[in-house]
């Protein structure tokens, strides 16, 4: 059973802080993703990665960066947190497309920026 683990369920940070959200998957998946989930806006893709040290911008990358130093770990970084980054952040992983594009999601991190 695939497990995607996000390090924190709830985080409260102050405006201007640097924030790290961590995600680990245990099924040797090639692809990893960060989405944010907002009421009325659905899930929007921030960044994704097809392989170690590779990253691709999603639809809303501004204000975010990512790091993938190991295959199982994908970190989302808010360089200088702002109140409009208050949201639920979801990490997901999947195998390469030849084996299906089903995403497995973590439980999410609810980030509040004050």
């Amino acid at each position: 059973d695939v497990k995607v683990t996000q390090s924190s369920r709830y985080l409260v940070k102050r405006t201007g802080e640097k924030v790290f959200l961590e995600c680990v998957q245990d099924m040797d998946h090639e692809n990893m993703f960060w989405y944010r989930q907002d009421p009325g806006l659905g899930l929007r893709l921030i960044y994704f990665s097809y392989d170690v040290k590779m990253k691709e911008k999603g639809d809303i990358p501004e204000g975010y960066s990512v790091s993938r130093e190991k295959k199982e770990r994908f970190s989302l970084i808010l360089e200088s947190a702002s109140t409009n980054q208050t949201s639920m952040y979801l990490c997901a992983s999947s195998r390469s497309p030849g084996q299906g594009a089903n995403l497995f999601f973590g439980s999410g991190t609810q980030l509040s920026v004050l």
Partner: protein
Amino acid sequence: AQRVTQPEKLLSVFKGAPVELKCNYSYSGSPELFWYVQYSRQRLQLLLRHISRESIKGFTADLNKGETSFHLKKPFAQEEDSAMYYCALRSTDKLIFGTGTRLQVFP
């Protein structure tokens, strides 16, 4: 542009009533579509995908290329179906999600 549209934010029905959650897509090519579901306090999970042509928990969805739709249907809703439902479109390796529809099933 690739897009997924779910026109209803909220759908409320009584137990035993039929349910149809609407999903329309915009995609140039052969689409691959999914429905994901998020129950209260649970993680988002795959419900079904069109290529499998399967029925999960009594739900079915048929891809209609002429109408560019992938509506989710269930003939008799149950209270445990209450959840947030997202339609998604595959674009290369990533999924594009709609804005979601919250289904409320009243007893």
